[in-house]
């Protein structure tokens, strides 16, 4: 395999790269036509890197420094409408500033790819990771995928274009990564060659909807109650179709690049025979996997699921994987104040997926790592032990809160 790869020059080199560098490499390799930038920590590194590629003559694209995120994302959307492959990105409050453009990019079915370097929402200011920014587009018709290593960031960005631009999908895709923990941490990555990328990623073709004088169409005219239902339905169907397209894309990705993505939607770590499964998204997987290893050494039947694709949500696959366990611990790096049973976003998505399961495990929620607070190996070990001990109605736990507060079903854990 290795020899064959070398022969076909699948990879051009290895390099030390941060998560945002991984995305920048993918944007360059995908021959993106237009990218628009606006500064906000922690996603900005991707734009710094792309600007340098342009300055060094390593990348040919139109590069626009926008006057704000609303403009930045509108630029991406309208570039995509003329048939140009577009890239944008933001974090936290910047992502929210773009919200109107985010919504219309999805309803216009334009396959823009965006990086969201997860950041806590203001106020008060915090640079650290929280997943609420990306989650705000979860119902709008965006594909949303979390990555947790720089290599995965590179690979997933290429896959994101492939899936988003598939004519049976035509939905924008947000590649989410934990601010700080991945945007700013460096890993060794393998950078593919342009030739191999072009084998995997065909040219973007918007087809009949492209804005060009040869194709005089009117896009997004006023519809009111006449057609809104039907158009929403089309989008709903596209989101359903996306799952199969994602499966196919990973299969081909594996065959072109020799990668080893078995299940596109999530990775399972030591879940076979596990009685307790911890599930989370993003970089918490590093601590979680080590915690699981340590507990397994002690003979505990524990496993971890790293969820990658959040939209489309892999309902059936997760139902199957989780209903084998007795207990599920959800790590929510987000909040949903006043939501069902006061749990986080992921918790309620997981519970909903398990509603129809024959064997329903106990599902416990752990709100953790907000604003960039570290989730340690010990924290995850504690998560497992609380999950085993807690009563069925002790559903939501805050990990590592300074003050101990009890009330209702909430039990916080001491560090």
């Amino acid at each position: 395999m290795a020899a064959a790869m070398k022969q076909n020059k699948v990879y051009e080199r290895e390099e030390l790269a941060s998560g945002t560098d991984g995305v920048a490499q993918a944007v360059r390799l995908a021959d993106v036509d237009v990218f628009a930038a606006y500064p906000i920590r922690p996603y900005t590194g991707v734009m710094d890197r792309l600007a340098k590629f342009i300055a060094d003559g390593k990348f040919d694209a139109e590069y626009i420094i926008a006057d704000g995120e609303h403009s930045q994302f509108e630029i991406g959307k309208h570039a995509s409408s003329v048939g140009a492959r577009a890239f944008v990105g933001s974090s936290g409050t910047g992502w929210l500033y773009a919200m109107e453009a985010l919504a219309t990019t999805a309803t216009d079915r334009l396959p823009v790819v965006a990086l969201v370097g997860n950041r806590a929402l203001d106020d008060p200011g915090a640079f650290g990771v929280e997943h609420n920014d990306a989650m705000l587009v979860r119902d709008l018709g965006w594909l949303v995928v979390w990555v947790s290593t720089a290599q995965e960031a590179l690979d997933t960005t290429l896959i994101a274009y492939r899936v988003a631009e598939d004519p049976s999908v035509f939905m924008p895709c947000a590649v989410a990564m934990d601010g700080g923990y991945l945007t700013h941490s460096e890993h060794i990555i393998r950078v593919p060659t342009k030739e191999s990328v072009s084998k995997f990623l065909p040219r973007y073709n918007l087809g009949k909807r492209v804005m060009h004088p040869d194709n005089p169409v009117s896009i997004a005219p006023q519809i009111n109650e006449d057609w809104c239902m039907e158009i929403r339905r089309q989008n709903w169907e596209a989101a359903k179709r996306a799952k199969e397209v994602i499966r196919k894309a990973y299969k081909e990705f594996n065959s072109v690049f020799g990668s080893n993505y078995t299940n596109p939607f999530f990775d399972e770590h030591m879940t076979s025979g596990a009685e307790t499964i911890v599930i989370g998204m993003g970089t918490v997987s590093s601590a979680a996997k080590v915690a699981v290893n340590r507990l397994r050494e002690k003979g505990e039947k524990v496993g971890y699921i790293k969820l990658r694709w959040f939209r489309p949500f892999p309902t059936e696959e997760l139902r199957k994987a989780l209903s084998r366990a007795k207990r599920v611990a959800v790590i929510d790096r987000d909040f949903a104040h006043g939501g069902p049973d006061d749990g986080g976003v992921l918790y309620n998505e997981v519970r909903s997926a398990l509603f129809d399961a024959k064997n329903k495990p106990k599902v416990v929620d752990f709100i953790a790592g907000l604003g960039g607070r570290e989730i340690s190996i010990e924290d995850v070990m504690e998560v497992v032990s609380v999950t085993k001990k807690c009563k069925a109605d002790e559903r939501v736990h805050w990990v590592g809160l300074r003050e101990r507060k009890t009330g209702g079903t909430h039990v916080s854990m001491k560090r």
Partner: protein
Amino acid sequence: MVSTQQAKKEFESAKLYTSVHNIDLEEFYSSGHRTCQGCESALVMRDFVKASGPRTVVTGATGCMYVANTSYMTTPWVVPWMHTQLGAGGASAIGMAAGLRALMRKGKIKDEKINVINFSGDLGGGDMGLGGISGALQTDYDLLVIIYDNESAANTDIQATNLTPYGAQTTFSPTGPARRIMHTKWKKNVAAMLAVGHPNCKYVATACATWPPMDYMNKVKKALSIGGPTLIHTLDPCPKGWDYHPRYSGELGQLAIKSGLFPLYEIIKGEVRYTYDARKQKRVPVREYLEKQGRFTHFIDEDYELFQSKVDEMWNDWEIPGVAPLRGILKLSQ
């Protein structure tokens, strides 16, 4: 600075209309829209795309020219048209222009001149989207933004904007016994402000779709031929919002210009040229213009006088009358 002579030369390729008889008959904004009778904003649409021709892509910001204009399955647009968000006019033009440039440079589509035009209303373009239009005028893309100004948020039922004239009644600025005048702002000087602040922008003009004949369409042609980002601000009489019989739209536009209230000019590479010079003409009293509109029926003599004094100040005291108020409003310290 480039001389007017030189600028003129560059425009030769623009093939300006010299007579109404040589205006193209072909329409690229045709039937299907549902704007009011006498709507001049609709005329702004029809005329710009006539002047720009079929090799054009257009985005339209939310507003009357979206909602009343472009109903599903009855689009009036013969050229590609796309909705953009209320404050996204400038960004939409950047996006399209950048996309087309990249695709042409990379050989992904045929290399040719495609006009990129956005229109935004006075609220969408003059208020909400001002930052985005500023961003567009700072680029080096060939694009044109038209701020079509019917002096209200017409689509949402005639609310005051920062381009609504002083004192006008709107649904947000009614008149009543306690407050005869609720809208006390003077109209934002939006075209000149954008012209002054954007060194990349070689062409800014004000215009009225109906008068003087061909003036607006020729300005569109100039804006599209000079290269780089450009801006046109039109004043559009709106029967519904201004409250008058639709038959007077043309006349009101003329009166706005002849009274000196709406200065008509173009700024070509920094040089201001009046296309109707209210300094040299006897200005019609502004009262004649105001009295014809229901939105000013609550005016008393002092309101008319205030209006007249502001117009006089603009033409007599401004550093560049109708454009730059330095002498009238801002003064250099001695």
